[in-house]
């Protein structure tokens, strides 16, 4: 039956906007950075799903799965990144989301960056990073998922 439904090669694939989930894992209540980032990515033409404060690793993975995002931006200022990030990646892998680009921002000490990259964080944008740097990184590194 399915053989009759051949994809029509005549029509070129239309590439949609990059979809980004902006989430704040953990318990700190400071979401200004996350909102600034959400706004900047919106202005860069991306579709930003903003889920706000106090997200558990499970909630982040579920939102990323349901929203089929290309990128997850995690903002964290509580210092709990070493505990939370491995759990987030564990949940993402369990959901089959290995191809999602994960970036982080917030107060993450330089000495922790290598360890975060080790577990899969593609980039860490610390305090003072120009917004454009983060936007450009996301635009250049978001997986192109229309190439099926």
């Amino acid at each position, binding site marked *: 039956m*399915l053989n009759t439904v051949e994809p*029509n090669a*005549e*029509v070129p694939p239309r590439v949609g*906007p990059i979809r980004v989930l902006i989430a704040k894992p953990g318990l700190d209540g400071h979401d200004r950075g996350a909102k600034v980032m959400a706004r900047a990515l919106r202005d860069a*033409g991306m*579709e930003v799903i903003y*889920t706000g404060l106090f997200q558990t690793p499970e909630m982040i993975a579920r939102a990323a*799965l349901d929203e089929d995002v290309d990128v997850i931006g995690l903002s964290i200022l509580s210092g709990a990144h070493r505990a939370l990030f491995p759990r987030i990646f564990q949940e993402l892998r369990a959901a089959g989301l290995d191809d999602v680009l994960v970036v982080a921002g917030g107060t993450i000490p330089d000495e922790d960056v290598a360890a975060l990259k080790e577990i899969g964080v593609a980039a860490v944008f610390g305090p003072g990073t120009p917004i454009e740097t983060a936007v450009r990184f996301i635009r250049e590194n978001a997986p192109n998922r229309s190439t*099926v």
Partner: protein
Amino acid sequence: MNDRSTVLQQLIEQFERGERRALARLLSLVENEHPVGLSAMAALYRRTGHAEVVGVTGPPGAGKSTLTNALIRAWRTRGRSVGVLAVDPSSSLTGGATLGDRIRMLENWADDRVYIRSMATRGQMGGLSTAVGASIHLLDAFGFDTVCVETVGVGQDEVDIAEVADTVLLLQVPGLGDSIQTIKAGILEIADILVVNKADAAGAAEVVRDLRNMLRLGEQRAWVPPIVETVATEFTGIDNLVSQIERHQAFLSASGEGAARLARRLRAEVARLARRQLTAHIDAVIASNAVDETLIQLETREIDPLSAARIVARIAADRLSESASVAG
């Protein structure tokens, strides 16, 4: 067999097994009008026709997302699975969007029988996105009992929701104007149920009174939209609202109005898609050198603009019928 066919078959099999990831991927591929998405829709459409589709519309800040969250809880209590499409506007300047409805619907995040998807309008006017129709079909085919579509915050004239929903809830809140607003044409005409949200706020009684008077002024119809007062943040009035939705669904099937609406909707959907197909081909023809000769004739005033347009439309229609026969 090429890679694309393999991906397509895998996605369809995973979708039919009920895998969320396949649903999420296909929603994107359909939204992006990717060939794999369009072919998957062709294969999966036969599974549709079981979901009740409920639309939630109203002005910005009326509480559409919060009400949807409350409705999800009420439907789940009744054992119904729920798929939600929450639409927010795309920027007309950059094409970007902030999709912030999900944040109000986090209560049921762990429930496997609830699926929430945020969508941007991507340039479509009317309160929805072009892909909403197809996305509803996918959620329906996936097996959700209820598909709930939340429009962007609307003004007076965004009535597209009536073209996709069985039951349209129109939210009103106190403080947005006097009774003259209720006798204007437009969005009030498409409401199946009038919801006065924030019913604990000052002025709510006046809103209810104005709506009631508006309904009295109208001609007698088989279905008179009930007015339901809610405080969505406190789940007040939600059970009554769900009962009214059920009553409306029962009316649709008992009166034959449901079948009539479905026929109108299918006709409208086909018209919309056909226009879109034709427009895409016209754009392609215009961008190609197939029109060079026609444009020269236009420049030298051998033909007039309307004649040139008809030639372009003819070429586009020919190409469309060629591609349709290839696809079929």
